[in-house]
C-alpha cells in the first residue's frame, strides 16, 4: 500500500501554510499527524496532489488554562494530552477517551486538532468537544475565527473549515469546582474505531444538583452528534 504521487510542502508558519493552500487550491490538503489522511492515501481513497505539512509550525502545541478556558494547541499530540498532569487532574474525560484511541505509538503522532478537523464521526475527540461545548479557533484567509462546536461538523468528512482554514486551537470551558465527565466507547477490540461512543460532561452546583450537562455521541450518524433529548432531561 503506497500513496499516489504528490508534492510535499513544509509550512513554516500559519501564514505560510495558508499561502501554500491558496497557491495549490483544492488539490492541496493539510497534514498534521497524518494518521487519518495517510492511511486513506495508502489505500488510494484519497489522492491529493499537494500535501502541506503543518506539523512543523512552532507554537501550536500547548495545554494551558487561560481566562475561562482550557486551551489546547491544535498540534498537541494525543500522548501529550495523555501525560499532561493538568489534564489528568482536572479533565479526566480526555484521559478516558485517549486511552481508547488507536494505540500509544499512533497517539505519539496523532494530534488533537487533526482528530477533530478530519470530520470523521468515528473519531473520539469530537464527541468530547460536543459534551464540553468547546469552541474551535481556526485561521484562514481573513484571519482568525471562532466556531462553536455545534456549528463545526457539517457532514461526512466535512466541517465548517474552508479549504484554506487551519484549526489552530480548541477552547474548552475551564473545569469548575464540581464538574467532570467520562467517555465510554464500545469497540470490537482495543484501538478500533468506535462502534459507538458517548461522552458526558456534567456540572453540579454546591448542593450537588446538576446544572449543566453535555452529551456527545461518536459514530452513530454521519456527523458527531449531540444528544439533545438526553441533555434536556
Amino acid at each position, binding site marked *: 500500500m503506497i500513496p499516489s504521487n504528490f508534492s510535499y510542502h513544509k509550512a513554516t508558519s500559519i501564514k505560510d501554510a495558508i499561502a501554500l493552500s491558496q497557491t495549490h487550491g483544492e488539490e492541496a490538503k493539510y497534514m498534521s499527524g497524518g494518521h487519518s489522511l495517510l492511511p486513506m492515501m495508502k*489505500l488510494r*481513497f*484519497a*489522492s491529493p496532489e499537494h500535501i502541506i505539512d503543518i506539523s512543523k509550525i512552532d507554537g501550536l502545541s500547548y495545554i494551558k488554562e487561560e481566562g475561562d478556558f482550557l486551551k489546547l494547541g491544535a498540534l498537541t499530540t494525543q500522548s501529550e494530552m495523555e501525560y499532561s498532569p493538568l489534564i489528568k487532574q482536572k479533565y479526566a474525560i480526555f484521559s478516558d477517551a485517549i486511552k481508547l484511541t488507536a494505540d500509544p505509538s499512533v497517539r505519539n503522532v496523532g494530534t488533537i486538532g487533526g482528530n477533530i478537523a*478530519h470530520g470523521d464521526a468515528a473519531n473520539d475527540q469530537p464527541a468530547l468537544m460536543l459534551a464540553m461545548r468547546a469552541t474551535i479557533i481556526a485561521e484562514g484567509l481573513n484571519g482568525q475565527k471562532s466556531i462553536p462546536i455545534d456549528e463545526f461538523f457539517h457532514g*461526512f468528512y466535512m466541517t465548517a473549515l474552508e479549504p484554506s482554514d487551519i484549526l489552530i486551537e480548541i477552547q474548552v470551558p475551564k473545569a469548575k469546582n464540581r464538574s467532570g465527565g467520562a467517555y465510554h466507547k464500545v469497540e470490537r477490540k482495543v484501538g478500533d474505531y468506535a462502534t459507538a461512543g458517548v461522552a458526558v460532561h456534567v456540572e453540579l452546583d454546591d448542593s450537588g444538583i446538576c446544572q449543566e450537562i453535555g452529551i456527545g455521541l461518536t459514530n452513530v450518524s*454521519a456527523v458527531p452528534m449531540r444528544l439533545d433529548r438526553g441533555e434536556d432531561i
Partner: protein
Amino acid sequence: MKTNLTKSFEVPQSTELVWSHLIDPEKIMDCVPGVSIDEKVDDNHYKGKVGMKFGPMGVEYDADIFYNEIDVENKKIILSGNGVDSKGKGNAEMKMTITITELDAGGVKLDAIMDITINGKIAQFGSRLVDTVSEQLFKQFVSNFSKKLAAAETAAS
C-alpha cells in the same frame, strides 16, 4: 455490499410541479450530489458521471442511468443507475423507487426506496463508510430537490 434506504419527505409544492421534476432527468439528476449527465442515449437511457468527494476522499464512476418505469397513474418512477469506477476498482449499482402522494393539507409526500450495491475496493476497505455516505447523499438530494422545487415555484409565480 448492499445497503438499503427507505425515506419519506414532504414538500409544499403541487403534485404537478413535483411530478414534472421527477420525470425530467436533467432536473432530478441535478439534485443528486455529484451527478452530471453527458449524453442522452434514448428517452430512458442517459450516460454521465457520478463523482463524490468527502473531504480528502473521492470516487468517480462512469455511469449509465435508466428510467425503468414511469407510472403516471400511480405517480411512481423507478430509476436505476450503474457505474464503473473510472480507475477500475469496482462498480456500484443503484435502484431508486419514488412514489408521490398528495397530502390533504396541501403539498406532497415523497416515499423513496433506494437499494445500493457496491463492489470492489470501497466494499472491501470502506464498508464502515457506505451507510453513512448513503444517508448523507440522500439528505443532500432532499435538500437540493426541495430548493429546486421552491425556485421553480417562485419562477412560475
